[in-house]
């Protein structure tokens, strides 16, 4: 792998940029691997990267039915934060946040992690109480999060309308200063490049259509649109399609797949300094480095794999955006799209071994797993390599829905981006 550096840029500038090598190879699938990861999103590619880098397991393939990052990784609004309520969540999301800080250096790939601050608005007394409780719980867990009055919120984010007679009055906000955004494609590409460099085969346009099991029930490989491939360890990291894949191995998972939509405006000069989320009215907004306002909505109400959703959802979100930021009422929206998000009953992920020997799963990230990408990939690699969970993901079992030991961020936050 040729390192990216300021010198490389200068050298290539002089050579008309003709000397850049491809970032990862596109090999034909081999007959057999030690580990197969299903899903070439950030989580799957990251797991392959950490398998190679931290565990020395390099005979690995990542199988992706479309193109790298073409799932939710390339469709999300890239909000990064770690101020979740429960201890288990603090462990997992803070692990990710720590890794975000050094990810560009680690990958030698600019993932454009920008700690511009994530502010969550409180619109009613219930929000205020819940957020303050969150802030205290976070403080006890060593997770940074602070309370702002409406005036302080406006100072942090000048476009915000804090007038008392707004349709959704701002009664305060919780601010995590280390929260922010990152470039989603770069996360997938950076992990792919790093993994490929260490010997991992990145195989696109290869859909897994079956999971093979031996007589003892253990995994022996997968069927794909490019033929069968053997492996004694298979990690499913397929977001909205995870239940479809798990059913191929006769494992029932508590997941439902919903559309989640986002949209971007025409690009304008820098106007919006941070990320602002409003769970109560389902509106999330930030500004990309290109200048587009990036706006996220809530999930549609019905399950779907269509990667599209209802216009009514976008309209509702834009109603709220226009009310909260009157200066945006005349902005034109350029594009909208949807992803398929895999939602668990407690809105926490499943990152675990399964009842099938050799089968591992990282799913259930629903509407909010981009922020967790490095942390989740890191502990998933550990789980696969050691055949036992890392202490950080040990609580995120499939069995918790049987034992009742839920990690109930659903009740804590209702929505989680």
């Amino acid at each position, binding site marked *: 792998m040729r390192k990216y550096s300021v010198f490389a840029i200068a050298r290539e500038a002089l050579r008309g940029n003709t000397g850049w090598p491809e970032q990862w190879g596109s090999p034909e699938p081999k007959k057999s691997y030690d580990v197969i990861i299903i899903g070439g999103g950030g989580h799957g590619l990251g797991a392959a990267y950490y398998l190679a880098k931290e565990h020395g397991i390099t005979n690995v393939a990542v199988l992706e039915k479309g193109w790298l990052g073409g799932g939710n990784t390339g469709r999300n609004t890239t909000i990064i934060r770690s101020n979740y309520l429960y201890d288990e969540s603090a462990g997992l999301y803070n692990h990710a946040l720590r890794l975000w800080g050094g990810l560009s250096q680690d990958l030698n790939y600019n993932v454009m992690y920008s700690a511009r601050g994530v502010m969550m608005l409180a619109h009613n007394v219930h929000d205020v109480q819940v957020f303050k409780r969150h802030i205290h719980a976070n403080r006890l867990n060593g997770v940074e999060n602070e309370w702002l009055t409406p005036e302080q919120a406006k100072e942090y984010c000048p476009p915000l309308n804090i007038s008392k007679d707004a349709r959704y009055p701002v009664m305060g906000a919780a601010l995590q200063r280390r929260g922010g955004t990152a470039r989603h494609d770069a996360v997938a590409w950076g992990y792919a490049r790093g993994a490929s460099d260490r010997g991992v085969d990145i195989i696109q346009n290869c859909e897994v259509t079956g999971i093979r099991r031996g007589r003892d029930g253990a995994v022996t490989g997968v069927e794909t649109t490019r033929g069968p491939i053997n492996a004694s360890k298979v990690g499913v990291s397929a977001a909205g*399609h995870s*239940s*479809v894949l798990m059913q191929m191995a006769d494992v*029932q*998972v*508590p*997941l*439902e*797949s919903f559309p989640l939509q986002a949209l971007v405006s025409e690009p304008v000069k820098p106007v919006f300094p941070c990320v602002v989320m409003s769970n109560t009215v389902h509106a999330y907004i930030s500004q990309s480095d290109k200048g587009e306002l990036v706006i996220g909505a809530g999930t549609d*109400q*019905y*399950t*779907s*794999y*269509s990667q*599209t959703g*209802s*216009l*009514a959802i976008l309209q509702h979100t834009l109603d709220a955006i226009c009310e909260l930021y009157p200066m945006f009422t005349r902005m034109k929206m350029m594009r909208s799209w949807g992803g398929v998000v895999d939602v668990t*009953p407690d809105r926490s992920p499943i990152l675990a071994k399964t009842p099938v020997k050799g089968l591992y799963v990282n799913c259930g990230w629903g509407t909010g797993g981009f922020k967790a990408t490095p942390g989740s990939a890191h502990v998933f690699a550990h789980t696969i390599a050691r055949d036992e969970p890392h202490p950080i993901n040990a609580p995120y079992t499939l069995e918790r*829905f*049987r*034992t*009742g030991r839920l990690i109930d961020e659903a009740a804590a936050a209702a929505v989680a981006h």
Partner: protein
Amino acid sequence: MLLIHCPYCEEERPEPEFRHAGEAHIARAENITELSDEEFERHFFIRSNPKGIAFERWRHMHGCARFFNAARDTLSDKFLVTYKIGTPKPDLSGEIRRK
């Protein structure tokens, strides 16, 4: 936006009048206190989440307010049929095979 045919009002109405109400044909056990943890998990948490034809409940919230069932293709989001609560699951094996 979906257009949904309410089998009670007998007309097609826009989606915002309706609430999706989860997977259909899940009978609540009558002996719920006697269920094992496995059975309770299956009843309470596990859903089929099909990529293809889903059977689901809807409620015409801002209309007649009644619950009804529907069969919908989760790949295209097209409704195949909506039917009243209490009527059996329609046989769509022909439809499913054609996919």
